């Protein structure tokens, strides 16, 4: 027998994955733009109260790498930050609307 919580969790997870797939990807073509997009996305996650722990560190590392002339490394770090922030924002929006479904019975 399928537990209602399991069913709802699966549905929400499906929703998360669907949203993740549909969310617009970063359009930055260089490290400077990627850093700016990561910062904006992370701020959006923070605004809903769901910022992840390490995202700012990735951005800071990207900024440092760019300052050191390591453009590719900076881009990769900023991309990681962007992806983290995007998932954090999806998580925040999902929880804001569905948190009551996660109360253990």
């Amino acid at each position: 027998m399928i537990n209602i919580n399991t069913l709802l969790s699966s549905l929400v997870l499906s929703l998360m994955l669907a949203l993740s797939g549909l969310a617009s990807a970063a359009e930055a073509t260089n490290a400077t733009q990627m850093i700016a997009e990561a910062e904006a996305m992370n701020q959006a996650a923070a605004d809903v109260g769901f910022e992840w722990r390490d995202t700012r560190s990735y951005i800071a590392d990207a900024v440092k790498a760019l300052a050191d002339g390591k453009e590719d490394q900076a881009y990769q770090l900023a991309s990681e930050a962007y992806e983290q922030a995007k998932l954090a924002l999806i998580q925040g929006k999902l929880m804001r609307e569905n948190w009551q479904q996660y109360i253990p019975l």
Partner: protein
Amino acid sequence: MFTTRIQLTLSLTVATLVASACMPMSKKAGMDYPALVQDDVTTFQAFFEKRFPDTEKADYINGVYSIDADARSQWESLEEFPPYELSVDQGKALYETPFANGSSYATCFGDGAVRSQYPYYDEDRAMVITLELAINECRTANGEKVLKYKKGDLAKVSAYMSFVSRGQAINVDVASEGAYNAYMDGKEFFYSKRGQFNISCADCHMRATGFYLRADVPSPGLGQTSHFPTFRTKWDALGTLHRRYGGCNENIRAKAFPAQSPEYRNLEYFQTVMSNGLVFNGPGSRK
């Protein structure tokens, strides 16, 4: 590609409709707030009674040691010479030391045995007031600088006040719409998954309590706020509840909120309400 989009859109729509249909109202205006909250308390406490039928309800103030016999025996040995004892003595000295204006903490809190008055919802300020916040507000009202909220002198003063308040009943009121909204914000925080690990407070302290997570058994959510500030062996020092909240959030790779932020004050409010009927027994000692 087009088919995939349609499938995704369909799954998204179905999931949204089902979730919306199943989701009760989170905040209700003009309701019997104490009755609504009491229903939550009853359900919450019943969860632990069912999970741990051999644990007396009153014993949940001892955290994980109420459900883990082996860890309890070690803890009881530790409590023979409590590691927080020196901090309580230092807190007492701080409590009794007059401020520059001649007043002292006693001006604000009398004999200090006021633990059961916190946290409470201040209707005029529309916010939850915790003991640690009140301690700093007592200082600023008397011309003193604020103390840091996570550890140090503020934790020591709080430990002393908790010590002289031991045995006071936890009985937090939620009697107004404003209080209920703060309570619901704390409740939402408690049950929301967050951080890169996608884990909620309830995941560890309800679902996983009693089971090992790596080398540790997470403590039950019931009674968690009764014994703070707490001396943790890991910290080798006393720390406040909000220091612990921050550590928990960092452990699940979520960005921690500042101590005494609205998020953590509301979480403390909700968690303390859930422990109504138990007693305060701080300061505590933990691994």
